[in-house]
């Protein structure tokens, strides 16, 4: 392998390669995948001079540590966290240079869940169906990083952005998700729909890239029986038999048989990706646009 590569020293809890995902294959059962917080991934790409489709690393809670084989330009964003190069503080939310064979450490998130690490040139693993994203539901794309993994890097695209620090939204202290009702709100009692739209839920620790699971008042169905499998969209709030709403995120299954009570506006999903377990959640009904 050429020296345009990154060696993984500490993979962290769950670090995956992500880009814009692989939309267009849902009819074959292929999830869209892609970065859970797309604005954060886009920002770190912009900071290092990458185009939006370049692949970045998505970390989960405790970051990761990497050793580039040649000098590279890097930017870290998403969940705020300490960043060091060979033990010395490095910027968060701004591009910086990492010398060849130096140790880049992305520390534990101070707030939020998912960190994004862009390297000039992008992570250049082999694409699968046009995307380099790791899809944890169906196992497409590269495996999650492991200690010792070596990732190839592409050639830098151009100069990095000239910024001191880029503004990024803070991870939410309370997650407010705007929802439009349906398509299966009629599968729930009127009281359950009211409960869903007025009561407080909490982010469950069982959340992952497939779905944001919540804990809170159980939603009672108005009718028994099974819904035949039907197509699912990003942001669908599915209610399984245990009555606790699950918000579908990037690696969600393309079809499912539990009723969808409402759909979260896509622009509210990046915040959902950054909500730590225990964060209060409110579902707020909004008019369809």
């Amino acid at each position, binding site marked *: 392998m050429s020296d345009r590569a990154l060696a993984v020293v500490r993979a962290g809890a769950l670090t995956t390669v992500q880009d814009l995902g692989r939309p267009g294959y849902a009819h*074959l059962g292929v999830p869209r995948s892609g970065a859970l917080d797309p604005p954060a991934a886009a920002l770190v790409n912009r900071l290092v001079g990458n185009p939006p489709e370049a692949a970045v690393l998505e970390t989960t809670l405790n970051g990761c540590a990497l050793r580039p084989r040649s000098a590279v330009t890097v930017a870290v964003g998403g969940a705020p966290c300490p960043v060091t190069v060979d033990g010395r503080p490095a910027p968060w939310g701004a591009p910086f240079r990492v010398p060849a064979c130096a140790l880049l450490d992305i520390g534990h998130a101070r707030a939020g869940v998912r960190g994004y690490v862009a390297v000039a040139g992008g992570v250049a693993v082999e694409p699968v*169906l046009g995307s380099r994203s790791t899809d944890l539901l169906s196992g497409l794309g590269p495996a999650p990083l492991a200690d010792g993994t070596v990732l190839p890097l592409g050639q830098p695209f151009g100069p990095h952005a000239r910024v001191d620090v880029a503004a990024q939204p803070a991870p939410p202290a309370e997650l407010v998700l705007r929802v*439009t009702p349906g398509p299966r709100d009629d599968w729930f009692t009127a009281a359950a729909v009211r409960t869903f739209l007025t009561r407080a839920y909490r982010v469950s620790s069982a959340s992952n890239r497939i779905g944001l699971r919540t804990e809170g008042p159980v939603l009672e169905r108005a009718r028994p029986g099974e819904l035949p499998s*039907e197509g699912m*969209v990003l942001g669908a709030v599915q209610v399984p038999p245990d009555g606790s709403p699950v918000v579908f995120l990037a690696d969600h*299954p393309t079809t499912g048989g539990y009723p969808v009570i409402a759909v979260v506006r896509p622009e509210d999903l990046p915040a959902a990706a950054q909500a730590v377990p225990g964060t209060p959640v409110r579902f707020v009904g909004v008019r369809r646009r």
Partner: protein
Amino acid sequence: MRALPVGDRALLVELPSGAEAEALHAELLRRRAAGDLIVGEIVPAARTVLLDGLADPSRWAARLASWDIPPAAPRTEAAVEIPVRYDGPDLPDVAAHWGVPVDEVARIHAAAEFRVAFCGFAPGFGYLTGLPARYDVPRRATPRTGVPAGSVALAGPYTGVYPRSSPGGWQLIGTTDAVLWDHTRVPAALLAPGAQVRFVPLGAEAEFVPLRAESEIPLGAEKTTGPEAPSAPAGTT
């Protein structure tokens, strides 16, 4: 037909039957190919078709209602043939549900002509219809934690083939070496919605050729082992 809005950018079109969902799916693909319909995803399912990534879902809801949709035409391309060994551990349970001897399951299943109604669960997993309704079987009460790749399985009105090993609750009736999903292949999925499928029992040729050669075999014996099952009319859903 009922078109339900899904968020701001999608429409879930619900139809009275699986056959009508297949017909609408075929019509949507035709219109997308002709450039009349701009949409991110067209996802057929049991009795619905999801249109995701529409600029104006409510306008499309009104338009769909006015369409005159012809029944899905039989595909002109040849059926995908899946070689199968009918050796699954659930053959006895399936035979009991069907009320037939165990060795009849393979004959009935292999005689049916299947169609991929929709995909889901895993990349390359097709929900195949084609067995008459009297052969519906329930899912297993306790799902298996590991079903091997290539398992041919039944649940409800559907037949499916597991593209990779995974947990699963379907009744296992056989195994195939066919590769259902290979992302390095074009197309990656062996089965896409709308495709016609036949299951070909492995070793069938070897079994049937000598039978035909030996004229002494009583007619009745040939009938019970022959590939055509009168009880499973072709193409029935």
